[in-house]
C-alpha cells in the first residue's frame, strides 16, 4: 500500500527532499516507517515529531493506504 511522507525544516534539509510517496507493508506503524527512513538515509535525528493526516499521533499508530505522514523537528513558531 502507498503512503505519502512529508519532511519539514532541518529534517527536510537533512534528508534532501520535502515529500515522497512510497510503498509500505500492511501493519506498518509510524515508528517502523521512521526507523526505515533513518536506516535508509543513514541519518541521526533526535526529538522527531510525527503526524498522520495532520494530527499528532503516537509512534505505534498503524498506517493505512493513503495516509499522509509527516516527520519534523520540534516546532518553533510564535
Amino acid at each position: 500500500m502507498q503512503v505519502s511522507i512529508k519532511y519539514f525544516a532541518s529534517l527536510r534539509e537533512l534528508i534532501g527532499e520535502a515529500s515522497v510517496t512510497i510503498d509500505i507493508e500492511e501493519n506498518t506503524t509510524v515508528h517502523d516507517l521512521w526507523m526505515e527512513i533513518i536506516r535508509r538515509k543513514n541519518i541521526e535525528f533526535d526529538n522527531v515529531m510525527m503526524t498522520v493526516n495532520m494530527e499528532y499521533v503516537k509512534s505505534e499508530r498503524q498506517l493505512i493506504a493513503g495516509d499522509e505522514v509527516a516527520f519534523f523537528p520540534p516546532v518553533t513558531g510564535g
Partner: protein
Amino acid sequence: MLVDIRKESFNAYREILSYQESQNFSGEYGATASFVGSMRDFNEDRKVTSMTLEHYPGMTEKHLNAIAREATEKWRLLDVLILHRIGKVTIGEDIVVVASWSAHRKEAFESCRSMMEQLKSSAPFWKKESTTSGSKWVEKNTPGI
C-alpha cells in the same frame, strides 16, 4: 473567529482593531487579552538580521483552528483572533497575534495565554534565523510557563 496565516507583513494592533470593528459586537465584551510576538534582533547570544518561517500548509490552519475553537468552548469566549506570519520576516515585524474577547477578564487572560502556549508547543512552524555568520534553525522555543 478568525485564524489566518500571513505571507505579508502585518501590524498586530491594526489587525485586532479592524477585526474587532468588523464583528460589530461592541458592548458585549468587557475584556480583551492579547499577545503579540515580534521579531527581536537578538536570540540566545546571536545577533539576528532576518528570519524565515516555514510551516506545514494545511495542518497549520487546521491546528490553529482547533486551538481557537477549543478555547472558545472551554472559556465561553465571545471571539478569538489568531494570525501567524510565514516567509521572510525582518527585525521588529510582528510574527504572531492571539487575542480573546470575553465578558470578564479571567477568561480572557487564561484563554489567551493557553492558546499561545499550545501554539508554541504544537503548531507546525519552524524558524530559521539569519545572522551575520550564516543561518541556523531555531532548535526549540523558550519555555512560557
